[in-house]
């Protein structure tokens, strides 16, 4: 049987769900009904076969990125372009930007087929946005609603340069070299946000700390692009000083990326503590005693 992606509207009749292998997208477009329809058809059409395109170049996509590339696919090349700014300083493969790059591709396919007020393409938390004139998205930032939970929200306006949002951390599907619970990045595109979130999440770390359990990535997933590099499996009890130090290490990385113009902002979270980098207003949604709060605007 030919493998075909799952393509269906969700039960609300408004959102489109696209799934194929590890790719899982939720898409919503707003605009005139016929435009939405055309956009969804374009998204479905582009999505069909997209995973095969990527897999055809999988070995190269899993190899450390270099300045020059022989990659051919448009999504593969976008992945490569998103990670190249980091290739000189650390090990990174184009896979670090796969989710965001797919989201960008589907968004572009929709935009080329229809005229819409606004669109989001959410690829498992890595999100590509389109905002027409005067439009905006309100984006909720939901931390774990347990004792250290925070609810925050921000607004992305059409005038902002932000069209991509991505989150990386040790709880996600991909392995992380760092210990961040989540690093959320705002950037011009989802692919750039995706790559940057990976890099910053890796930088939230306490090398050699005894409470952190690490394993070789390829022991866990034989074909991981990270090879034998140690990935975080568990984080034990950390002191407030440890948490602050790890966050600061990630924040320093984020500030550099911000200064280089690679990101528009970032929110770093570890063990209930949080750091905000960038000019974007991240509204706190509720007053609370800021015992663990440590917000810094760079």
């Amino acid at each position, binding site marked *: 049987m030919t493998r075909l992606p*799952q393509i269906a509207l969700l039960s609300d009749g408004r959102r489109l769900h696209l799934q194929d292998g590890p790719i899982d997208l939720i898409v919503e477009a707003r605009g005139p009904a016929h435009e939405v329809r055309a956009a969804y058809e374009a998204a479905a059409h582009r999505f069909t076969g997209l995973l095969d395109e990527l897999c055809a170049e999988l070995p190269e996509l899993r190899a450390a990125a270099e300045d020059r590339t022989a990659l051919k696919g448009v999504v593969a090349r976008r992945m490569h372009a998103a990670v190249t700014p980091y290739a000189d300083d650390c090990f990174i493969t184009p896979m670090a930007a796969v989710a965001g790059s797919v989201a960008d591709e589907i968004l572009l396919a929709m935009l080329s087929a229809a005229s819409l007020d606004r669109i989001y393409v959410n690829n498992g938390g890595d999100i590509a946005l389109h905002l027409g004139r005067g439009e905006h998205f309100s984006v909720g930032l939901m931390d774990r609603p347990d004792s250290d939970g925070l609810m925050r929200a921000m607004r992305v306006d059409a005038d902002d340069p932000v069209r991509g949002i991505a989150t990386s951390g040790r709880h996600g599907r991909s392995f992380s070299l760092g210990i961040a619970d989540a690093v959320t990045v705002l950037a011009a595109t989802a692919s750039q946000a995706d790559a940057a979130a990976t890099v910053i999440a890796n930088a939230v770390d306490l090398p050699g700390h005894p409470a952190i359990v690490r394993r070789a990535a390829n022991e866990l997933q034989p074909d991981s692009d990270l090879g034998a590099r140690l990935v975080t499996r568990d984080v034990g009890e950390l002191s407030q000083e440890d948490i602050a130090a790890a966050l600061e290490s990630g924040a320093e990385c984020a500030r550099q990326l911000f200064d280089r113009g690679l990101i528009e902002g970032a929110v770093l979270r570890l063990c209930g503590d949080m750091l905000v980098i960038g000019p974007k207003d991240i509204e706190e949604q509720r007053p609370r005693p800021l015992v663990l709060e440590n917000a810094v605007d760079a």
Partner: protein
Amino acid sequence: METTSAATDKIRCDACPVMCYIKPGAAGACDRYANHDGKLVRVDPHVILERTVSQGGKLVPFSRSEDWDGKLVHEPSTFVTAIGAGTTYPDYKPAPFIVSSEVDGVDMVTVVTEGIFSYCGVKVKIDTDRYLGPETATVRAQGEAVGHVTTSEYGSQMLSLGGVHHLTGGSKKEGRVTCDTLMDLANCKAVELTIDGGASVVVQAGQPPIVNGVKEERMRVGCGSATIGMFAKQWHGKVDEVVVVDDHITGVLSEHQAGKLLDIADTGIKMKGRRSTPGRYFQVADPGTGWGGTNISDPLAILGPFDKKEAKPGLSMLMVSTTGEHSSYYVLDEALKPVETEMPADLKFSVERIQENCEPALCTVLFMAGAGGSLRAGVTDNPVRLTRSVKDALTRVTSGGAAVYVWPGGGITYMVDVTQMPAGAFGYVPTPALVAPIEFTMKLSDYAALGGHMDYVKPLSEVRGGDDVRPLPWQNPIPGPRA
């Protein structure tokens, strides 16, 4: 699904062109296919989806273009209905960013999180009439007290395990063992428990209990008296006397109301135990793991000598347990002593009928936890509003996508059948406390109302005054017990 075994113990998944090599116990890049003991298995969240569809969940095919018409909806596609119209699929890992539209207030926000519960435990229902131990007896795992025997239910023994007292009130080891026990039970793993003054039992959600090394096959069809009532007509004319041996209420056909109605003659039988009403006897023996939940292996032990005035040689008697698992057939000799004889075919048939009417004995595990002030406070600045919203059915609570029963009264105390949840849904923190998935799904407008600080906030009173109070969606056929 085919798999090709590659070098060593890895398997190669061919579900999609990524062709992941997957090690035993691990999942592929999609988190949907995993290597379980060398076999490729599908894991959540599709477990939930497929259940939804099989229960008549709503599918909305999106199909017009030739390229992907029809066929493309080849997999269940309503997973959002499994936990409501959440913005992201029911991942039980944190999904910190959720894009939502504030326009019209119709978009849904799903707060997908893992709650940390120190006020939590499991209620275990063990389908057996065998004696597991006295009520309130301590239940132990690895020698540590983890809970107690609570009031028994119909055909079942009940255990209440965990709770804040064992998790945090005892020794460090007690807390750790309790936490491990709860997590294993909640993750549908087998756990051996011993009961002070009682039995040892292996409990695993969805599996038959193993009591003192013996696997329980069936629940009893009814108490002994009920069994007499159910089968009296089928026995009438085929045997003179029937005794249904039961630790709770042993039934005697000739004395029972059902026998009287059929004009079954007295047989001169003399039962031990305490007569309740005619044909119904309490305490014919001590509780145990023998016949009908008693401690006897020879059923004649519960009979006294037959009354010489009424009994006659040649009188036939069937003795059977409430599950049909034990049965013997006797004929009185000249001295009016019952002598075991081969059972006639039509009586064998009636015993098989009892067996057939006994449902498979299972262990069921309901995880029960309370979403405390701090958890709720993580969702809103005014925690009680979340509680009220749940109670008013504006906010749906699910656990790993599974329907939950929310207790009436204060707080958000819920129960969920762990077999309805994704595999490995539970974790722990060293506090010790359990980490369980919990999702609150609500209308964005409701959420704004809950949060109180968003610019589109709508007063809760306004929401409550309107037509927005909806029935819970799982009043439609969504699987899982309603508890």
